[in-house]
């Protein structure tokens, strides 16, 4: 410790030690990169490369990566909410069942209620938004009910949501007595991806560029803010490096989505319908980023904003670290808890929309076991079950890891029982490695 109050020499002891740090450690310190996040991304890349080798080059193709992104979307959306739930030392075992129930409600709304009973007819342009809003309201109400019982009546979240797991699965069956509802509204279906449910090449580049500009603006803004109060700044080379890396990753992802071309069958159909002209083998139309992936990314951005930039987010983390202290600080902790479960319910509804749209149907078993994937995604993504720690970005990567494992094993032709065994083992190892990492940090 030094007595100096000059910003550049903060953390006297650490600065003294810095001279002995290795190049890697210096690099990480300068860029302020989260080593845990780096480790997770490394693990993800390792999984991808191994699957690519074992599946004979089938994994790292634009087609598979694009599918992976679409398949991850629904669980990723719910995982962002699960982070807040787990951070506050709660758990939500009911998300899969809520997804099933809300999906059923949305399906019945758009396939039966609106067109038949309310006279909207089929493929009315308003149908999709009404169905989605109905779903979100129902999801919020269910989440609010859970949250109320947990926060105000004091029943542990584990029990309330275990009850919810059974109740909402049963309720989903009840809506149609177990009958599958199909097909979905054509606009609604865009939320599920597919060639039509993707935004195409040009729009994808535009989105990619907007993200890059936003990234650079954020780096500049944070630098300006820190300058204003004369806080220590990152070296310029580190800022440039981070900005370049971020833009490179974003544009790389867009490129991959754009070189996954429409399957020839669809091109043939479009030519027949007179929508396209030319020779079917010479037409290459890239999918671009899928709409469900865009939805998931938007959800992640909004949730990250909530978690890190708002009072609500601050209270969530404080509550997770020390509930009593948060209460004594004058924060209405019950209401915060209830809000978290309302958000979780809304996210389940969004995930339900993605999943029903993708399947083009609502089935009684939809979302079964999704609660486990969602919890696993959050935990692999660094959310601590002891509370107080977790990031939205981590949960998104966690969801990608879980989905990569599953898709990869399907590509390799592994049997379902074996898949389950592998996923279970990976989950335990991941959490063990995390606890080793955390211990090493202190």
């Amino acid at each position, binding site marked *: 410790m030094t007595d100096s109050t000059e910003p550049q020499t*903060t953390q006297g002891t650490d600065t003294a030690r810095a001279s002995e740090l290795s190049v890697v450690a210096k690099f990480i310190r300068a860029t302020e990169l989260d080593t845990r996040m780096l480790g997770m991304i490394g693990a993800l890349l390792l999984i991808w490369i191994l699957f690519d080798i074992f599946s004979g080059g089938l994994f790292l193709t634009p087609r598979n990566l694009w599918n992976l992104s679409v398949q991850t979307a629904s669980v990723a959306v719910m995982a962002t909410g699960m982070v807040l739930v787990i951070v506050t030392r709660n758990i939500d075992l009911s998300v899969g069942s809520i997804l099933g129930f809300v999906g059923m409600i949305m399906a019945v709304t758009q396939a039966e209620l609106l067109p038949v009973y309310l006279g909207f007819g089929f493929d009315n342009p308003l149908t999709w938004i009404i169905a989605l809003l109905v779903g979100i309201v129902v999801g919020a109400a269910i989440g609010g009910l859970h949250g109320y019982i947990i926060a105000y009546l004091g029943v542990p979240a584990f029990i309330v949501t275990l009850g919810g797991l059974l109740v909402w699965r049963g309720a989903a069956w009840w809506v149609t007595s177990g009958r599958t509802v199909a097909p979905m509204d054509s606009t609604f279906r865009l939320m599920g991806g597919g060639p039509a449910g993707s935004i195409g090449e040009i729009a994808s580049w535009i989105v990619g560029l907007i993200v890059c500009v936003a990234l650079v603006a954020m780096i500049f803004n944070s630098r300006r803010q820190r300058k204003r109060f004369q806080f220590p700044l990152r070296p310029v080379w580190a800022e440039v490096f981070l900005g370049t890396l971020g833009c490179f990753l974003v544009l790389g992802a867009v490129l991959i989505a754009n070189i996954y071309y429409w399957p020839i069958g669809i091109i043939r159909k479009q030519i027949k319908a007179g929508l396209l002209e030319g020779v079917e083998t010479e037409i290459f139309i890239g999918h671009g980023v899928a709409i469900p992936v865009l939805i998931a990314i938007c959800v992640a951005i909004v949730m990250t*904003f909530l978690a890190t930039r708002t009072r609500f987010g601050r209270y969530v983390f404080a*509550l997770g*670290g020390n509930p009593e*202290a948060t209460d004594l600080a004058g924060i209405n902790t019950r209401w915060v808890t209830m809000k978290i479960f309302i958000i979780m319910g809304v996210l389940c509804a969004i995930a339900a929309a993605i999943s029903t749209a993708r399947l083009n149907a609502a089935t009684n078993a939809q979302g079964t076991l999704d609660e486990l994937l969602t919890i696993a995604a959050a935990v692999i993504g660094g959310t601590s079950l002891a509370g107080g720690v977790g990031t939205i970005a981590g949960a998104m990567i966690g969801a990608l890891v879980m989905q990569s494992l599953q898709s990869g094993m399907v590509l390799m032709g592994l049997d379902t029982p074996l898949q389950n065994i592998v996923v279970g083992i990976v989950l335990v190892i991941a959490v063990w490695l995390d606890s080793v990492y955390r211990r090493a940090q202190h």
Partner: protein
Amino acid sequence: MNTNTATQPLVDMRELSISFGGIHAVEQASVDLFPGEVVALLGHNGAGKSTLIKILSGAYQRDGGEIDIDGSLATIDNPRDAKGYGIETIYQTLALADNVDTAANLFLGRELLTPWGTLDDVAMEAKAREVMGRLNPRFQRFKEPVKALSGGQRQSVAIARAILFNARILIMDEPTAALGPEETAQVSELILQLKSEGIGIFLISHDIADVFDLADRVAVMKNGQVVGYAKTGDVDKDEVLGMIILGKCPPGATPGPGALAS
């Protein structure tokens, strides 16, 4: 019973009682506090000091009794209510949110916001550096969660939080228990300064010498009851020790309901 009878008391706690499953932690305890006055609460371990002030700070709901603030009846059902009356508390357990940093703790529940309604972390950190600089100039670890701080540093954070928002009534439950001599001296200075600004302070401490240096009056508790009250000028240290240990009220003190019948 008080130093300046001219003004009305800032706080008047009357016959407060609370019990936890049959244990009478606080029984019919009455204490008052005037602006610019330091009242020390003394007593053996488990006497009920922390419990009494936690009723005032809204952490516990009392079973009986009344609290007046500025002469009118106050409703304090939770910590938010208490803060509304300008009551700030440094808890014995510090009550810090361990996993967020110093600035986040200082402003917990009263965050500074940007014009867009988002957290203004930079401004909060700047203010945190300023306040902590006054209390503990050596302190530099602003980026770390407070669980990574030493006991004394954590205590400094808890003190800084209590004085940050213009408290009118300050409750300090063993505020210097973990502090080094230099930092303790700083807190003593701080108490005198706040006192001169007209803030009323309840000070809980086991250090009798400190109490005689800082407090205008003492109130001694034993087994949940008040043994007696005294101006620090009217009694000596041994007499106060007698009150704490034996519950014996000396001639210079006013006996309370817990005084040893003689």
